[in-house]
Each structure stands twice: as C-alpha cells, then as structure tokens.
C-alpha cells in the first residue's frame, strides 16, 4: 500500500520555501508520517511545483523518526519525493539524512 503526503497542504500561505525546525515538527505531526511509515509499504511526498527551497533544517525534523526507523538504504527505497518544478531536492535530502544519522552515530561522514 502506498501513502501520499501533499506538502502543499502544509505550506505557509504565500511562502515558496520550507525552512526551520519548528515547521518540520509541525508537518511531521500533522502529516502523521511516523504512523504512515509503519502502515504503508511506500510513502510518496508531493512537493509543490513553485517551491524554491526545502532546507535541511526542515527536512531533519520532518523525517527524523522515519530515517532512524528505516535506516539510510530502506529510507531511500521506501520514501520518494515527487518534484515536477525546477527545484531539485536530492542534495538537501542527502544533507538532512546524513545529519540525522550523524546525530545517532557521532561522525559518519
């Protein structure tokens, strides 16, 4: 079963960015991503087309429990970000995932 989280539901009106740890915690709690990861095989996260940045600070808090639960490899196998705009999330996502795992293990990179 696949679950879908649409980030446009959680964006601040008028804003073109997702930044900050507080916002990350808000979206984590309201999207219920921590529960979806247990009840679904895959999670697809839809990024609005006109988004210009999703900062690692936001992603770290949004994904912290999911990454810690699945580990790096399973996270990339089970959680997908769908972006159709110009912004590409890969580098920010990698920075956030590595940072979460560094929190657990000390220096990992």
């Amino acid at each position, binding site marked *: 079963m696949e679950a879908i989280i649409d980030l446009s539901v959680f964006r601040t009106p*008028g*804003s*073109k*960015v997702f*930044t*900050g*740890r507080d916002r990350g915690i808000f979206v984590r709690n309201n999207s219920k991503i921590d529960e979806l990861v247990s009840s679904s095989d895959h999670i697809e996260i839809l990024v609005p087309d*006109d988004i*210009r*940045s999703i*900062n*690692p*600070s936001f992603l770290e808090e949004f994904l912290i429990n999911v990454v810690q639960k699945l580990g790096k490899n399973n996270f990339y196998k089970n959680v997908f970000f769908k972006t159709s705009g*110009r*912004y590409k999330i890969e*580098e*920010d996502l990698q*920075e956030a995932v590595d940072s979460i795992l*560094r929190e657990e293990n*000390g*220096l990992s*990179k």
Partner: protein
Amino acid sequence: MDFQNRFNINFFVQSKDVTDFKLSDISDLAQVFIALINICLVIYIFRFEIKKTKDAKADEEIKNITSVRLQGFKDFIITPNFIHLQDFFNNLLTLKQKITSSQIDELLSIELNSFIKSEVSKFRVNFNDAILNVNRNLFDTIKSKIEFLSDNLVTVISDSNLDLTDSDLFATHIAFQINYTKNEIVALLIMYKGD
C-alpha cells in the same frame, strides 16, 4: 601492711576535702586543660593544612588539564580551520555580486539558495565537524546559528519582494545577518573554556 598501703594508692581512694584545694592545684589543672586544647589545635591545623594542600594540588591539576585541552583545541582545531570560517562568511557576502536583478526570478532564486546551502554544507565538513569530536554542545550551538542564518537568507531571497540590488536593503537583510552570525560564532569560540 594493709592492701591500700601496700600498693600506695591512698592518694586515689582518700577523698579530699574541697577546702584542701590550693591555688597551685587549680593552676595545674588549667595547664593540663590548656595543653589538651593545644594538642587538639595542632592536630586540627595539621589536618587542615594537609587538606588545603591536597585541594590546591587537585585544582592545579584541573587547571593544567584544561589549559592543555584549550591549547590543543586552539592549535589543532581553530587555528588550522579558521580560514574555512572566514571563507564561509566571505563567500556568503558575494551574494551581493550574484544578485543581479531587482526582481529575483525563480531560476535565480533556486541558484542562490543552492549556493547558500552548499556553503553551509562545506562549512560543516571543513569546520564544525572538527568540533563535534571535541565538544558536542559547542557543535550544536554553532550548527543552530548557521541553520538560523541560512534559513533567514533563503527566506529573504525566495519570499520577499525586496530589491536586494539596493545597497541599503542588502546591508540590512543580508550583510547584517551574515556579520552578526560571524561575530556570534567568533565570540563562542573565544569564550569556550574547554568544559
């Protein structure tokens, strides 16, 4: 010879009338009492001095360890990597040359955001990760300040309708934040006591 005389213990068993006490007896007793107090005082002072010496040695040892640790922190972490800290903030200030349009369009905004986040990532690898192994709290504090700066810069560049080609607006919304964060981090490093 009865038992008492035989063992010459009359002095102990015979009760002495209070009126038989002479001034010299009182003086003898006072001298004994003063001698006892003196002995107690000598023991107390001796023990106090030993404890004081021990505490001073322990304090000195802690000071030496802290001093060696701080010197190592300065020699092996800060001095060789300080150039990366300066580069990070100087590179961020080049945003002034990179902002070429009074209206930042989507493409330029994504490019500038990517530049900011790439600089943050380089700063972490070249500077802050070295601190992680020495002091976790200092690492977290620096990370938090850099995150706050990059989030603010990205938000100003992406969300505001400010003309950042204007020198005053750039100074207020970009340069001030960069320099403020730099000063905060330098102050954190200077005030670090090795604990």
